[in-house]
């Protein structure tokens, strides 16, 4: 990277056209002075012209030299560039079935539209949907085969405000959204989320978030979320730590009265925490040095609560809290070097994947990228699928269905591959992992 940077410095510093421009300026000056001299004394014209030739040639030589220097700079940069990327060929599209994505433009486009929405880039998203629409229309006009379903575009179109007025009142928002994520109000939902987040993160204003949480209290509880409590806790802390020089005790009173009205509405599972909060009041005004200081005076609380809010909000929409597209691309970036290497080896040895459904090699990802449990049969080393599910033997060991059938081979009793226990194949239970 340093070599590249240095080569770039040279380009920007000296190996560029600025010198050539200077030399063109002096060329112009030379020509101008000669012209003026001849205009002043026409008699001497041949002499002036003769005197012009040598410097003229020099001028152009200098300009050529200037360009050579630029060229040299570019060559150096090119060398550094090649060096930097010497181990990586340009990524080919040939990783697995990647060409398949090209034929699924519609789905890729939809994923992008949803990504833009969840990023809060509503204007970009609407420009994008318009362009996708226009292009689809164009293709249709050209008589091209537009079997592709661009119906999702309609789902993204902005709806009339009226037909949605009562939706939040319904309380069964979740039911309505379940499985209908592409519907028109997605944009509205996300814009609501960003409005609340903006208040929360940037203005430290809890009110919109608390209103939202109260509104969805039942659903949140249903899912075991503690967002509502976390918000109240933060509100309490905010009241307590608000500085009012005129009346230092007023903040404590405010916090106390808030605690009295709000905390009892929560289930007993927060008892310990509420007790800690109230006790914290006793340490005023030396809260900073008290045992409760670190718990109550923590800037990161806001970030934590913002993240919690995002997670719960998106999860009520049944969506992951980080953009799937973003997760997938990051995972792709991590997996690509391995896949690329395998591909190189495969090409060199003219090998082929033995399984079309599965990557030929492990592509390890950090633990944050694991979303499901994975069962690999200890006998066949194959991953369980719907067709080949994990089976629990009476002894408690689990093997894949095909392995079980292989071991049994039609016999009425089968011995567990991992312990001495025998059982009838029919006794095995299919597991859902």
């Amino acid at each position, binding site marked *: 990277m340093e070599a590249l940077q240095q080569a770039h410095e040279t380009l920007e510093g000296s190996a560029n056209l600025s010198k050539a421009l200077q030399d063109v300026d002096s060329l112009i000056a030379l020509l101008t002075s000669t012209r003026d001299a001849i205009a002043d004394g026409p008699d001497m*014209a041949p002499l002036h012209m*003769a005197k012009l030739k040598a410097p003229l040639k020099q001028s152009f030589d200098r300009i050529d030299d200037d360009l050579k220097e630029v060229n040299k700079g570019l060559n150096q940069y090119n060398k550094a560039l090649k060096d930097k990327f010497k181990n990586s060929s340009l990524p080919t599209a040939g990783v697995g079935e990647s060409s398949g994505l090209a034929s699924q433009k519609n789905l890729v486009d939809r*994923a992008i539209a949803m990504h833009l929405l969840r990023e809060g880039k509503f204007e970009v998203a609407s420009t994008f949907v318009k*362009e996708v629409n226009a292009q689809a229309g164009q293709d249709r006009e050209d008589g091209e085969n537009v079997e592709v379903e661009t119906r999702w575009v309609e789902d993204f179109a902005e709806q009339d405000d009226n037909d949605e007025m009562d939706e939040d009142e319904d309380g069964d928002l979740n039911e309505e959204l379940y499985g209908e994520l592409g519907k028109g109000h997605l944009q509205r939902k996300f814009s609501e989320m960003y409005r609340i987040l903006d208040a929360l993160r940037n203005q430290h204003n809890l009110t919109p978030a608390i209103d939202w949480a109260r509104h969805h209290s039942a659903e949140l509880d249903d899912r*075991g979320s503690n967002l509502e409590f976390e918000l109240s806790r933060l509100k309490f802390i905010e009241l307590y730590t608000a500085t009012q020089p005129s009346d230092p005790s007023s903040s404590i009173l405010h916090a106390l009265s808030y605690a009295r009205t709000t905390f009892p509405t929560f289930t007993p599972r927060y008892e310990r925490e509420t007790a800690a909060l109230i006790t914290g009041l006793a340490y005023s005004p030396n809260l900073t040095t008290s045992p409760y200081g670190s718990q109550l005076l923590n800037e990161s609380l806001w970030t934590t609560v913002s993240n919690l809010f995002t997670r719960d909000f998106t999860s009520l929409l049944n969506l992951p809290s980080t953009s799937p597209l973003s997760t997938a691309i*990051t995972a792709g*970036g991590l997996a690509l070097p391995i896949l690329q290497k395998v591909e190189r080896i495969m090409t060199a040895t003219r090998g082929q994947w033995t399984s079309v459904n599965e990557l030929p090699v492990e592509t390890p990802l950090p633990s944050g990228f694991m979303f499901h449990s994975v069962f*690999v049969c200890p006998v066949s080393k194959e991953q369980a699928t719907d067709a080949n599910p994990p089976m629990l033997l009476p002894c408690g060991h689990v093997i894949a269905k095909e392995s079980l059938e292989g071991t049994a081979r039609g016999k009425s009793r089968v011995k567990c591959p991992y312990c001495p226990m025998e059982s009838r194949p029919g006794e095995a239970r299919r597991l859902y992992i």
Partner: protein
Amino acid sequence: MAEVATSKLDPDSHLLLDQPLLRLPHELLRKNLKTAQRHIESTHKAVSTSIDTLKPAAKPADTLAALEATLAKAQSLKRKLEALHEEEQTLHRQQRARIGHLQDLHDVQTVDDVKFDNWSEVRLDRLLVDYLLRQGYSSSARALSAAKSITDLVDIEVFEEVRHIDSALRRGDVKEALAWCGENKQALKKIGSQLELELRLQQFIALRRTGEMGKLMEAVVHARKHLVGGLDTEFGLKAGGLLAHPPNTMVEPYATMYSPARSSYLATLFLQTHHNLYSLPSQPLLHTALSAGLSALKTPTCHSLHRAQLSSPAIALVGNPVCPICSTELNELARGVPYAHHTKSHMEEDPVVLPNDRVFGRERLKMLNEKLGVPGGRVRDPTEALRGREWSETELRRVYIS
């Protein structure tokens, strides 16, 4: 869990997708220099001839006129170089920003680092803009790169020019493509491209198709000028053959050459040539990264019939976040890609099975049940949330998964 990667980041292997990022400005700088060279050469030549041809005995007025003419040429050269220098500075600025962007990655030690998330986000935006440009969603590309302030990291102008030429070609207009060939003559020669010949042949076909005598003569002149002369006789022969076969011929390869489909063939050839010349990948990098990512994340569970229950909201809130492959955004898209390879099971700690055959880690099951408010000693399948049946904890069975 042996399959979990170490979180250490190796920037050099991670930069696999990023070579074009630095390649393109470099190739454009080269082209810029070549253009400057061409201007200087031609000015040099013109100035020398006009001064050399001036006779020593020429009248002072003529000498002055000749000098004025050279002066004008030098000034025009200056203007051209100034424009090129400006372009050069823009490219340098982009190059600097791009090197800085890649340097950011080198400053990241592990993938857990917040800085890595930030970097990945910028990369995603870059790949998205690249994709949008390639699909012709130019306004979206502009809007996104402006909204994310990454204009120096993306190549909007380059792709817009490509798009422009491409759509002209599809309309049957080869002029702009020919102009582009002219600008890149040397480079095209170097890679042995036949694009220009194909375009010239297209012009010939258009003239031939009319069938009018005058146009036919013009076609012959055109063929003599552009299609024959090189060592390669292929295109001259093609032109000859076309003269012998009328536009409604059934004879191949002439029928194909007359076919309107040839315009999209030319457009594709142009795109290939262009991307090849500027070291741009033929596929959007988004496809490459996305297909790798979909596969790496995909498990057989993601398209299993039992998936809906597995990624249910309750699990999502208190346990793992919702799987990106299971989410609406990517589920259909991932259907066709292979799933990740695993050589070992990885399950939650201490797996137990419920009477309904569902497996959970014991601790997590307990925690989920607490959140659901299930009384002690009783247990419920958390994926069924409040609708679920309840069993006694004694009905849980340990399972052994190696």
